[in-house]
């Protein structure tokens, strides 16, 4: 029998979670319904949220999917996501593993060097000078290569690796296994939670990166989704030639909502698969700091 105080606490928790759910779901539902709103709809945004589905219009989605610019931007974002996550994990995992080896000579010094850029940000101009100086302008790699190793993610991963029993590594080393073998055959198979979690962190960061794309990708054919979304979202504000609508007859508010929703689809699809590893990965990584 649960004590009364525990019951009360659980009820309060239920209420809090329901309120949080409502706060999260309402804007999401508003965006979804706005993306399906027909041009002929008359009413407030609130009334629009309760419009029956048989009155919805897919004009905005037709306009977006029929727009070559949108598909190209989506493809560019996917490329950045895939190559970016792969590169980041390929670089972060060995670095985190090295830092987790307690007997590594100069480990403390190396950790300080890793922490320094995290504490002191050089700012935009020096970054721009370095990235353009090494010729990354107009390359998709400019989005993910400079930030391929995140100090925060690296330290979380290091903490996770430190939590793996030392005996496992020692037994392999005693049998003559080199360090890379220990990493690949022993550590990585046990590290699925942290790899997926950190991969998700990197993925979200690269998918949403607007600033680097705006600064370094001058070729319009390379521009990813955040740039196009930004242009769409302020389209009716900046376009003085308002006699033409780049997306035909679809209402601009529906276009905006549809583009926001479509750009979130990859993350919405990926997250449920990674969710079960998410809490475990972050928690275990953060415990052993």
């Amino acid at each position, binding site marked *: 029998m649960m004590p009364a105080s525990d019951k009360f606490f659980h009820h309060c928790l239920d209420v809090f979670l329901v309120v949080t759910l409502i706060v999260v779901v309402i804007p999401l539902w508003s965006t979804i319904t706005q993306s399906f709103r027909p041009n002929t709809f008359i009413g407030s945004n609130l009334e629009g949220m309760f419009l029956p589905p048989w009155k919805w219009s897919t004009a905005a989605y037709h306009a977006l999917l029929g727009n070559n610019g949108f598909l190209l931007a989506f493809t560019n974002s996917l490329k950045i996501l895939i190559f970016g996550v792969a590169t980041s994990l390929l670089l972060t995992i060995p670095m985190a593993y090295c830092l987790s080896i307690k007997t590594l000579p100069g480990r403390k010094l190396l950790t300080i060097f890793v922490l320094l850029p995290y504490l002191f940000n050089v700012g935009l101009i020096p970054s721009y000078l370095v990235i*353009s100086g090494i010729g990354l*302008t107009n390359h998709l790699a400019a989005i993910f290569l400079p930030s391929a190793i995140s100090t925060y993610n690296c330290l979380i991963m290091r903490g996770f690796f430190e939590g793996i029993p030392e005996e496992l590594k020692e037994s392999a080393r005693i049998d003559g296994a080199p360090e890379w073998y220990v990493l690949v055959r022993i550590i990585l198979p046990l590290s699925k939670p942290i790899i997926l979690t950190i991969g998700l962190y990197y993925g979200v960061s690269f998918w949403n990166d607007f600033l680097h794309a705006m600064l370094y990708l*001058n070729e319009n*054919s390379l521009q990813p989704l955040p740039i196009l979304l930004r242009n769409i979202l*302020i389209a009716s504000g900046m376009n003085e030639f308002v006699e*033409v609508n780049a997306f035909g007859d679809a209402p601009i508010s529906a276009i905006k909502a549809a583009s926001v929703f479509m750009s979130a689809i990859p993350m919405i699809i990926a997250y449920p698969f990674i969710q079960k590893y998410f809490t475990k990965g972050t928690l275990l990584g953060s415990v052993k700091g």
Partner: protein
Amino acid sequence: MTEMLKKLVVLITLAFSLIVPVFANGTQDTGKGKKLDPNAPVTIELWYGAAATEAGPPPADWGALKIIKDKFNINLKLTALPSAENDQDVKINAAGAGNALPDLFMVRRPVWQKLVQQGLIANVDDMYPQMPNRCKTHYTEDSITFTTINGKSYGLASPGAIAKNEGVLIRKDWLDKLGLKEPVTTEDYMNVMKAFTEKDPDGDGKADTYGYGAFIETNNYEEGLGRRMDPFFGAYGVAGTWNMTKANAGLNVLNPAYFDALSYVKQMVDNNVIDPNWLSYKKDDFRAAWKQGKFGIMREQNAAYAAAANYKPFDENFPNGSWIIANPPKGPDGKSAVGAFTTGYRIYAVSAKAAQAGKKAKIAQLLEWMSSDEGYYLLGWGVKDVNYKLDAKGVPTTKGLADPSKAFTAPEMIPLTQLKNMVYYNGAVEIAARYPAYTTAKSGKIMDPGDVLLMMQTKPWTNVIGSDTLPNPNADLKRFYEQGVLEFLTGKRQLTKDNWNAWIAEFKKVGGEQWNADGIKYAKDNNLLK
């Protein structure tokens, strides 16, 4: 000993990593005195302000690129600047800091001024004689003055948006249904707004209409509540941020009449005659709202109201609905104005790097070609007989095209005319072509956005030319100004004379007085006062 050795190694490494950067010597891009090989193709990198950024750039096989290559041996590399002005500034500032500015680029005046001070932008005085045709249409004396600093011109300023292209619009069918005449004075306007709110002008039995619709749209010369509410401020002689007359130069907010204008708008809010969403609307929400019949009076841009694509939803929703372009309300002193107008220029700057590389002559050739008949029509409308035809008056039209889907107005063809901002100069051909008359699909009405524009330009306006170049307030002052005005309207602060005077005193203290003084001085020094 080993411990000491370890510490020594660490200290030496740290010292080395600190000292070495001091001696680092970056490479210098001298680029000086380079002469172009007359036979080699010249690459010109152009960052342009797109006509519709969201529509995408011109295709790689765009005909204009081939013509430019064949005629002038120029490889033109195009990059569309971001839509948002802040993003444009960040991109250009970053490129400037990295000495990586493109050869020719559009730039906003505040950023342009800083780049000139840093020596990153070339003097273009020697380019004007090389562009005689372009100078006739684009580079007038005013525009050259706009980009002159210390007697030298550092930018090529083309005409910007069409001026006085907005007006006060009133639902004619609502006036007729309620037996009302077109309002003249502010009192008339209030009565009509009340009637539109309370007397069900759309006859649907619901209390779902309002007198006036607006949204907050401000810029540096239309501060406070912005341009959508300016017809009411114009009625009190305080439209826009600045008064640019010699007699009363200064910030309009410091004018006692501003309180009267604000009181009028407060009455609108208190009488509930303004669409309550006006404080949260963005531009497209506002435009969707009038097409949905939310309100009966508004200030709107001619093309946003009357162009085919924009009027269509209203026509479908209300085939019997119509609007008239009304005179703005007359205040107690007989003053009226739709709002404040200025003539904006688009500045295209040539980077110092491009000048040092000897590219100015080629850039002048390119720009002169853009102003030739071939360039003007190609960049402005596309290919003749494919994207447009010329009517009897020589105006581009989409009538009679073999394939209507390739008309320059079709969404798919917009990328072909992304550079039209660089060739348009608000000439008669453009106005006629941009705003052709058409018959609405549902109601069969004849709509003529060109006539709408001409009518809007005949209404009274307040001349504030040059006020967009006056010093801007700092972020805190701007926030104080905008928030303060809204607080009076929403009732957070009571709008009484005493409260207003106290707020003005505070406004002056937080920098308003200095801003006012700086603005007046700048206007006087640059002969902007009339």
